[in-house]
């Protein structure tokens, strides 16, 4: 054979061609199929970016006017002493004065105290309630009932509870008096109980949100893990703490962050119930800010306070968005 090829260059050529053809066909066959399928022939690729920017433009323009512009205006305001009449440039004076403002510091500590107590109560009651509702036959009805308080305007909720707490004809006041936990003064009128009264209203209105979030989380707890654990002899209690609860952590984290920010965001019911009083027993920072900016119209000082509040919210928001984007949290 070797002789043959050596002698005839034509045959050598054919052999080379054959070899190339074979190796080529191997190459073709070895090409993974997915490579072809991953990039289909696109007749209509996504439009140029320009097109999408045009669609975005109206929303961005509106947002720029009502969020970006006010943000810079806020910084500008905080460097001035603004009254009804006009402004006077004072530099960082507003900020420096905040450090010696006891009501500002009091506002922050109260806000933290208020938020932490609210959240602790809402989380413990809310999760417990979710577990109970999840095991109930009447889940649909129960969830509907739980939704009701959240549909009410917080200001109206405040007014309703103002009526219930009323020292002369409030039914809840009567109830608390009859049980013996309150004397004749209304719960709102005393400095040591007013904060608690406000917290109760927040718990009444927003615990169901935690319950609904936890309920959605409970639906995703893997059943097989629970069953496997049970087969291994775990008690229901043990099952709850070692499997159900860890599975709930991601959604509960979202719930906590959302409620925490809402406590910063909304002061409607508090404003209606106590207006920060008695004294400054319930004057959490947003309420104090409201007073400075819209009662005394010290917009400059208000702006400085607002910026500290915004800063903390933005940090919280960064954390929240990170939790959102974590695929393990929330989305199923």
């Amino acid at each position, binding site marked *: 054979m070797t002789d043959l090829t050596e002698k005839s260059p034509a045959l050598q050529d054919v052999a080379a061609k054959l070899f190339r053809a074979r190796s080529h066909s191997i190459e073709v066959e070895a090409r993974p199929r997915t490579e072809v399928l991953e990039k289909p022939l696109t007749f209509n690729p996504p439009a140029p970016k320009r097109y999408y920017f045009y669609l975005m433009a109206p929303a961005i323009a509106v947002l720029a006017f009502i969020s970006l512009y006010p943000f810079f205006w806020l910084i500008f305001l905080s460097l001035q002493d603004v009254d009804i009449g006009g402004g006077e440039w004072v530099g960082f004076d507003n900020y420096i004065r905040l450090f010696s403002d006891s009501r500002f510091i009091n506002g922050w500590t109260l806000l933290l105290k208020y938020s932490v107590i609210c959240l602790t109560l809402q989380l413990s009651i809310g999760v417990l309630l979710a577990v109970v509702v999840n095991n109930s036959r009447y889940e649909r009805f129960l969830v509907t009932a739980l939704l009701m308080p959240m549909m009410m305007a917080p200001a*109206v909720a405040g007014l309703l509870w103002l009526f219930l707490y009323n020292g002369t004809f409030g039914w809840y006041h009567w109830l608390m008096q009859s049980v013996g936990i309150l004397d004749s003064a209304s719960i709102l009128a005393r400095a040591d109980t007013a904060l608690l009264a406000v917290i109760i209203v927040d718990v009444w209105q927003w615990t169901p949100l935690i319950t609904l979030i936890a309920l959605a989380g409970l639906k995703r707890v893997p059943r097989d893990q629970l069953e496997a654990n049970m087969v291994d002899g775990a008690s229901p209690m043990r099952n709850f703490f070692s499997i159900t609860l860890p599975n709930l952590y991601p959604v509960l984290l979202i719930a906590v962050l959302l409620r925490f920010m809402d406590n910063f965001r909304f002061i409607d019911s508090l404003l209606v119930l106590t207006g920060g009083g008695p004294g400054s027993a319930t004057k959490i920072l947003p309420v104090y800010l409201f007073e400075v900016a819209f009662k005394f119209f010290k917009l400059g000082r208000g702006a400085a306070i607002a910026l500290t509040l915004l800063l903390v919210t933005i940090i919280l928001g960064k954390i929240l*968005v990170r939790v959102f984007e974590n695929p393990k949290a929330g989305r199923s």
Partner: protein
Amino acid sequence: MASRDVVTYETPLTKLIRVLSVVFLALYLVWTLLPFFIMFISSFKDLLAAFKLPAVGDWSDIGVFFDFTPTLKHYRSLFEDNAFGTYTMNSLIAAGGSAVISVIFGSLAAYSLSRVNFRGKSDLFFWIISTRMAPVVAVMVPLYSIFRSLDLVGTLPGLILAYTTFNLPFAIWILKGFFDNVPYAIEEAQMVDGATRFQAFRSILPLVAPGIGAFIVLCILFAWNDFLFAAIIGSGGAKTLPVATRELVQPQNIQWGAIMAAGVITTLPMMALGLVIRKYLVTGLTMGAVKE
């Protein structure tokens, strides 16, 4: 014994837990719904009947709560002596206006954010969502100052714009999630059939329409229930229901019957709407983090 019954066993402890959980549920239901019940009943009570209360500790006399002749006079006086008809209209226009603006602009932006990638997109997104998260009072300080110089304070357009500060970011954020679930292949198929880009966009709208509808309602709910913006930005010419209700509280003479009636008027429509969009409510209230 069927196989699925194997794991259910009843010990005294589980029995106790079951009884306790029923008691807990019942108590919680009463705790949640009782305020509504009292509000509703009190709105039909005469002034004197509303003040009737048993003596402290006198549990047997609790029935005085039902000892009244129902009257509609609070509702009538709200609309006749007080301009609650106008306030309802203000609430409707402000809430509806901002909801429609937010969802139209929001769905365009959400659609394009879901289809295109560019540098700084996540930063843009964070800016959008942080607008929604900002404390209302903090937003209001500069907004009030700006709106005052533009003569927008106390007008409905001003209030609509103010509500858009939280509704537009919300709409963009939530609707992007909806558009993300619609594959681009559908639009592509439409364009192969000769549709223009905009027609292709319109063709996928029916797929997201239920979501868009639900979030219009949710935007209305947020705006309707707002108090702070309405109290400051809307003060004067654009009084909404929560603010008007609050103003019934006067130092000397608090008209509780009228306040409760106004509370019912403000709350009832939102409850009805809430039931209509129940399916989307949890998603909406948790900003899309939790899907039911």
